[in-house]
């Protein structure tokens, strides 16, 4: 059965798009049929992170408004064949999205894919509420930092009240994904630690993605971090998170960089 998942956060710049691409790619590599949908109309980024920006012809708005058919707008990934992208429009804004239009597109996607990952825009306005509107599950991306955590708390409140499931009296299953986590800085009290975040959000943890250069490197070359360097710490953390989404039991550890002896010695000295 198809699952609609919204990747949301409230706050901007915490890693929604990176996480959507990485999780989508990880799920697709596990043989699942996955589509990632960019809801950030007017500020689209998912096409860049997926490396598909030069292949966009039609977009979500065209499909919502009936200008194009869904298959015309879907872009198949060149690396993983069960991974697809439905890009957003860069020339329009969020007002071009309609509730019925989005509902129709999501319904149509449900019949084609196992996973529909909706990359929500930041904020709590129309774009964000429509991205979460038809979700069955939600991933709340949070940085270990008070403003991000409070915004996530706000978004969780909205998931519990503004989604179709909530209005029907059903639950939207929620997962917290902590990104840009630096165990060293958390230990020194420069960051919120995991327990603090979970205590505030009172929501189960999906995964902890360590802060890493690999994330920026991967998005600069237009590749989801899980495909770019599968051995990197963030890639392994995303794969673990994807396995948990699929129902596997995976121990919660924060992957660290695999360093040689020299690197490790140097790394310590630098810290």
């Amino acid at each position, binding site marked *: 059965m198809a699952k609609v998942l919204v990747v949301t956060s409230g706050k901007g710049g915490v890693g929604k798009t990176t996480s959507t691409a990485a999780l989508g790619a990880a799920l697709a590599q596990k043989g699942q049929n996955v589509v990632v949908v960019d809801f950030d109309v007017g500020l689209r980024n998912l096409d860049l992170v997926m490396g598909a920006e030069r292949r966009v012809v039609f977009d979500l708005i065209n499909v919502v408004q009936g200008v194009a058919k869904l298959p015309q707008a879907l872009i198949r990934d060149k690396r993983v064949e069960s991974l697809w992208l439905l890009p957003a429009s860069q020339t329009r804004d969020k007002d071009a999205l309609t509730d019925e239009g989005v509902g129709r597109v999501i319904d149509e996607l449900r019949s084609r894919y196992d996973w529909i990952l909706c990359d929500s825009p930041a904020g709590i306005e129309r774009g964000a509420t429509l991205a979460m509107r038809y979700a069955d599950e939600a991933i709340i991306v949070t940085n270990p930092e008070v403003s991000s955590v409070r915004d996530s708390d706000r978004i969780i*409140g909205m998931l519990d009240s503004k989604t179709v499931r909530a209005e029907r009296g059903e639950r939207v299953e929620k997962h917290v994904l902590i990104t840009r986590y630096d165990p060293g800085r958390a230990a020194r009290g420069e960051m919120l630690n995991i327990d603090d975040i979970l205590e505030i959000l*009172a929501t189960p943890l999906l995964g902890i993605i360590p802060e890493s250069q690999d994330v920026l490197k991967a998005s600069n070359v237009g590749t989801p971090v899980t495909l770019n360097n599968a051995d990197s710490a963030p890639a392994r953390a995303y794969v673990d998170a994807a396995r948990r989404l699929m129902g596997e039991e995976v121990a919660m550890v924060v992957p660290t960089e695999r360093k040689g002896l020299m690197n490790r010695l140097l790394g310590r000295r630098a810290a």
Partner: protein
Amino acid sequence: MDVRADSTRQLVRLRGRSYVAFVFSPVVPIVDWLGEIDNTLARSPGYFVGKPIVLDLSAVDLSGPAIAHLLGSLGERNIRVLGIEGVDEERLATNMPPLLTGGRSCVITRNEPAKKPEPEPKPKPNSLLLENPVRSGQSIVFIEGDVTVLGSVGSGAEIVAGGSIHIYGTLRGRAMAGVNGNSAARIYCQRIEAELLAIDGYYQTAEEIDESLRNRPAQAWLQGDTMKITPLN
């Protein structure tokens, strides 16, 4: 000595009290109108017993003796008149009920003995229980009484209650208790990291809350005009 001085000066205490009275407005011919009264009495005898009756004579022009006769006729039907309105005072004899002014209309609730008394409306619940955390940006307003939250109240969330507020998680947002003047209301929480506490309009912000109380079970209450916040254990 003081006692004697007191006993010589007895103060007359005047109190106000209001009753709802039936207003009779006779019309000519008076005989027919009395017939209507008889009909009412025939359907439910004793309908007017024990009810204050006011006679409104503004619709008719009756002389003093005519008013006396009308009062007599009502008296025969066991209807006693409390007061009269809508007539010149000169026309009223001293043995008649007094002239009344300043009456206000209101709806009369009938409770005829034949009718079953309506079941009392269920009293509204005077407490609100929230089993889930109250998230940032949510505002819970419950003027009718107490609010109990089993989870935490997030930063940027607020609880407004007419009564007391009980939070079995961490209070990180705002809590306003006793909002409609209930100064006996209190705020209890398992951990206090509140942004603002208020009881009956008196408030304290996070800055004013003593650091030593932070992250502990605490209660807040009003002592006169000052808000007290003390640990619960």
